[in-house]
């Protein structure tokens, strides 16, 4: 007789193999959907209101200093071949501009996200590997060697195009200018400063000697080891402005952090009064219809000023509420077709 235990082909009669696993089978019924929509709507409206109000508390000051218009203070600097041009923007604050204040420079129509531009740097150089100082990687082409075949350090288009306008902010108190101290420390990402970028090891105790045999990027006025003459530690690849610039912007209209106002008399913000911003105008943008601006902004938990998100939340939230009402009408009209039985 056939032995029962030997039926080898018999499939396992388990819930999994027989596709009978206990399952949750949601059916979109009115009972869940209408309150669901309503709940989401209300929550979103709540978030939206919060965001919007927060955004409203953030103060932003912004000046375009490109100098396109003839009467703008920096117009004179737009004329080509005016080296070391400075211009001055004066403004008045009627009330306290609360600190801590972030001081940005902004560029528009500037495509840092252009693909070939983006790849144009040598990570090995930037981690302080002097081996690559002599022979930069191909990514840097054509900014890897100058016309005399000297290697460029730091090579590449990004470094070469580094923003080099500088700013000084003064408060005008009784006609005298009082410089507002600008804090340039820690404006770059911590990871960039501490992990990602490394300066070359000084040769014979001299930092500039590490750069022997290389030339500065074509557009730079000074070599990398002389970027900040006031602070020896803010030189080379660990220069804060350099680090900020190297972190490419996602969109063609962007701003980058320049300094923070956190020190001295201004740690609580800029008090009401007259101010003057001196711009050392170096960076050409007119040729490609670019714009330059400076932005003063304070921040909240949600970062900078951003009305869009709050409004979007409000709109979507209201939409959900409206939808739930529409649903209610629809269901009322069609008599909850799944509940009437």
């Amino acid at each position: 007789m056939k032995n029962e235990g030997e039926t080898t082909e018999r499939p396992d009669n388990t819930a999994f193999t027989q596709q009978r696993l206990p399952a949750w089978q949601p059916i979109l019924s009115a009972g869940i959907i209408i309150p669901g929509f309503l709940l989401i709507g209300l929550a979103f409206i709540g978030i939206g209101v919060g965001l919007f109000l927060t955004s409203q508390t953030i103060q932003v000051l912004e000046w375009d200093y490109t100098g396109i218009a003839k009467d703008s203070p920096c117009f004179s600097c737009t004329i080509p071949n005016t080296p070391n041009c400075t211009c001055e923007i004066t403004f008045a604050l009627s009330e306290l501009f609360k600190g801590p204040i972030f001081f940005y420079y902004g560029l528009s129509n500037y495509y840092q996200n252009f693909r070939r531009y983006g790849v144009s740097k040598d990570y090995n150089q930037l981690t302080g590997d002097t081996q690559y100082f002599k022979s930069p990687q191909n990514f840097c082409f054509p900014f890897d060697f100058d016309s005399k075949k000297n290697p460029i350090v730091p090579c590449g288009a990004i470094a070469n195009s580094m923003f080099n306008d500088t700013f000084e902010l003064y408060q005008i108190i009784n006609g005298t200018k009082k410089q507002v101290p600008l804090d340039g420390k820690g404006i770059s990402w911590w990871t960039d400063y501490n992990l990602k970028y490394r300066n070359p090891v000084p040769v014979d105790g001299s930092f500039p000697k590490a750069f022997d045999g290389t030339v500065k990027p074509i557009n730079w006025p000074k070599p990398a080891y002389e970027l900040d003459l006031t602070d020896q530690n803010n030189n080379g690849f660990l220069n804060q402005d350099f680090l900020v610039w190297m972190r490419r912007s996602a969109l063609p209209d962007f701003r980058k952090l320049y300094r923070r106002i956190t020190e001295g008399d201004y740690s609580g913000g800029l008090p009401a009064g007259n101010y003057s911003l001196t711009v050392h105008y170096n960076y050409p943008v007119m040729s490609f219809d670019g714009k330059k601006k400076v932005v003063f902004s304070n921040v909240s938990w949600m970062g900078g000023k951003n009305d869009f998100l709050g409004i979007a939340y409000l709109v979507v939230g209201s939409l959900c509420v409206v939808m739930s009402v529409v649903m209610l009408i629809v269901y009322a009209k069609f008599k909850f077709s799944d509940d009437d039985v």
Partner: protein
Amino acid sequence: MRLVKRRWKDVRVGDFVRVLSNQIIPADILLLHTSDPNGVCHMETANLDGETNLKQRRVVPGFSTPGKPFQPQTFSSTVVCENPNNNLNVFKGYVERPDKRRTGFGIDSLLLRGCTVRNTDDAAGIVVYAGQETKSMLNNSGPRYKRSKIERKMNTDVLFCMLLLFFMCLIGALGHSIWLETFTTMPSYIVPDRNGNYTPSVLAGFYMFFTMIILLQVMIPVSLYVSIELVKMGQIFFITQDVELYDEELDSRVQCRALNITEDLGQIQYVFSDKTGTLTENKMVFRRCTIVGTEYRHDENAARLAVVSGANEEEEDTLYQQTKLPKLPLEELQDSHTGDKNHANTQVTAANRHRSRVAAGAQCDMAFSTPLETVVVPDRKLTLEVDRQMASILSGPYLDFFLALAICNTVVVSTVTAQRQRDKGRSNSDGSFHIMGQWFRKGSLRNVFSSMKFFKRDGETLADPFAKDEDEPDMFHSSDVSDSTTGQKVLSSEGEVKRSLSRTEEVCYEAHSPDEAALIHAAKAYGFTMVERTPYHVTVKLPDDTLLKFEVLDVLTFDSTRRRMSIIVRHPHTNEIIMYTKGADSAIMERLGNVFSDMSQVDNVAKQIAVKTQKDLDMYARDGLRTLCFAKKVISEKEFKAWFAIRQEALSAIDEKEERLMDTATNIENNFTLLGATGIEDRLQENVPETIQALRRAGMQVWVLTGDKPETAINIAYSCKLLDHEQDLVFTFSTNRKSVCKMRLEDTLGEVRRSSLSPGAEVQFRGNNSGFTLMEHSIGLVIDGPTLSMAMSDDLVEQFVELCKHCRAVLCCRVTPLQKSSVVKLIRQKLRVMTLAIGDGANDVNMIQAADVGIGVSGQEGMQAVMASDFAITRFKHLQRLLLVHGHWCYSRLANMVIYFFYKNVAYVNLLFWYQFYCGFSATAMIDYWLMILFNLLFTSAPPIMFGIMDREVSDSTLLSLPELYKTGQHSEGYRRSTFWIAILDAFYQSLVCFFIPYWTYNGSDIGIFSFGTPMNTVSLFTIILHLAIEIKSWTVVHWVIMIGSVLAYFIVTLAYSAICTSCNPPSNPYWIMHKQMADPMFYLVCTLTTVVALLPRYTLHVLRGTLAPSPHLGARQLERLPPSRREQRIREWRGLRDTCISPSLRSQEHSSSPCPTA
């Protein structure tokens, strides 16, 4: 001479090879020597074709040297054979001896590689094909590649995707050119070449086109193809795992041989079925016979068969009464007729029990040997007649009839000593002698016992159990027939059984076809037992235990053209040369000795016999029995010699051997003396009518194509509810003249058109009185082979197809295998429908291969059909579950998955595309490349695959009880062009949302490229995963694990990657970006808002559609939530509503109150 052991790979053509018993044959070997005195060698071909019976192979004629060892040194002939081919059943060639004598040989001298030698101590021969050229290797072509309907559709959609990609790249290229044109002097961020020159903007745009292709190539869902393969593997796993499709008797699951057309099972519109072995059991049961004009009803045997099923009915009845309220016998009767669902269910269980019990008896690993088939209770009258002839004259038509039954076949006898010995497994049947004896006795005793019990019951209650089955003979009908008479009959038949048992215990038959098995067992029941068969002799034990050893002069094997087989033997006593022939009635009747043809020399007796036999045959056919005629011919010595010479010539022929052999056979097969005919019942498989009905309700057209004669076929068609006496208007087409055929076709078509015209009025009528629709006649068509070929000729084919479209059922009888396949091809091509062919025999192979989906029933007739099929099942009823449940699931799962996949890729790629508008069309990606790759490869790959394998909208039980749900697949509702474009549009919308909400949030800020891309990537992931969550219909643990796991994997991998990689993937620098973003509350706010906005429309649409226009599936899902009792009621309501829900106008009025199925 010395034998050496060699590896298989070293065997070359021309080598002499000796194979021992139970060894596997290493190459195709021409058999030259065996240890068997008769020069035969048995081999088991189960490895090759799955057939478990032994095949007999013979030494090439003239080379047999019985008793001596094989002497290859003396072999000096040349072997010539045909080129290697993959036909397992045809082989021809000849051996040319040094003296130019040629001996032909065929497949019966060839040992096939992969088979096992059985029952023969050793066999030796010369290798004719080795290695890749062997027949078994040539047959290993692998499954044929079919492309499923969805895949075909999908491929065009992939083309659309490519077109879309092209346009996007074009936009990128143009945009880049135009963008570059806007600059009068190049800004510092555009990189010049070495000489300070810039690429011309047009050329830069041209380059950009190709760069864009690289960036956006994910648009073309290459991974979709891989995923589909994985999904299908999973689907197949679940199909084969289905315990409901497991056959206990054969210990086999459903086999999926084609791996890529699972979803086609869900789209079938036409089902073409074979009859024998597919609708029926193909377990032939000897029922009746007619000998020289006298019909023997075999009532006792009928009673025995009835008891086998009756015992079950009894059980079922008690079961039924336990579960339901007690009923009056009258009601009980009605119930069994109306086919109430509960009732049907209990019938199923009862039938299953029956089957398993039958299976329990079949421990001997042979085909056609269940007690149902082997035990025949002899007819008393006939036994007396046989005994009389045995006692007196030792010859006569009765004896001839049974001798023909016993020897005119190709059955191989396995006795205890010759019982095949196997090395392992359940098939080990040592000492089968005792077991066999036991179950012979057991089977018959049980039958007798139950029949006794039954009579008792019969006497006690007035309910007549047999009244249910109209096919049963009416011998038990009136209970007035006193118990004593029936009891007596039973007693006598019991004695009969014992008598036959005592004679026949020691043999075991291995038959190639179930008909042969049934016949030889019938002969055995009357005491004519074939005890030995060799190529030269066949020995029969007569009722008086004397042995009659016939010398076999020739065997004219069966072929489908002649439709008969003959054996020519020399009678040991009279020395006469006798030819016994059996065959289809037409094949015999037309060759009877001048009965009908020559009216001048009418042999009155012979004519009368023929007429009477024909009458009986017609009656058998009406009762759905398979008929075979038996005839005899005495051949004179001279005639035989003359014929035998021609025959030998034909046998050794190389060219046109088949034709010549057939000619010689036809030459001798004439002037028969009719002996009689047999009626063999082929019992309908269980649940065939239910299955056919379910398939019908699922919108499938069921056709039956059979080689049987119209009467038998129609009878079966009625009993399996293919045709219905009340509902169907049956047109029968059978003519030999084309003009008649044409006329009939036109007439019928006209009539059909008239009745189906003005459908609007009809619908209204139905709406008003839904009860009437039941009365409306649907059209059935019966057409026979010759007429079919006329109808399929070029000028009539259009009309024929048109007519077929209107028919509810079509039955084609007497069709050849080729016709079967051409019918399938015709319908498939003309009507552009999905076809399924199901069959079990070699004659169905063509049809199975021609259809979109071929299903093989692994039954009694070998494995050819299964080997040609895409899916192999064991019972016809499994088709219901395979199509309605698995087919439907596979279809909707795959369709949804494919759509989802398109959506997913487009949605993701478009993010990159929108970014191009803000990066000067420079092909910058704001997402790290590795994360982009992993996004498709890791984070979003498992959920759709799981979705494609495991999603389940409606449970199997609901799908089975509401076959109408299948129609979505038939009409390809899951995956249409419109569905595709909606998905693409949704993808565009979602990608716009996913891009622009972060864009507007971060625009003007100091955000870096990858910091900008990270929330987008995250949002994309959430959107894509939650989009799927909306689509998933049932959430099991696996769903939760994979969905949540995918999200977790995204965060873990991204966090790990951007923590480890300070600068490992220049120029992109994802270092610490994810961490920085996740520390920013804005990130979460952006993600939440974007995800909600992206999915809101789809979700709302789903909700509104569920409310305003619920699909039948939604209705079915709601049904599943009801308690079982309510569900039953609703399902019945639904079925009733089906007819009223036809027109949309009616629906709109009704849908407020009830969910109508939208077909």
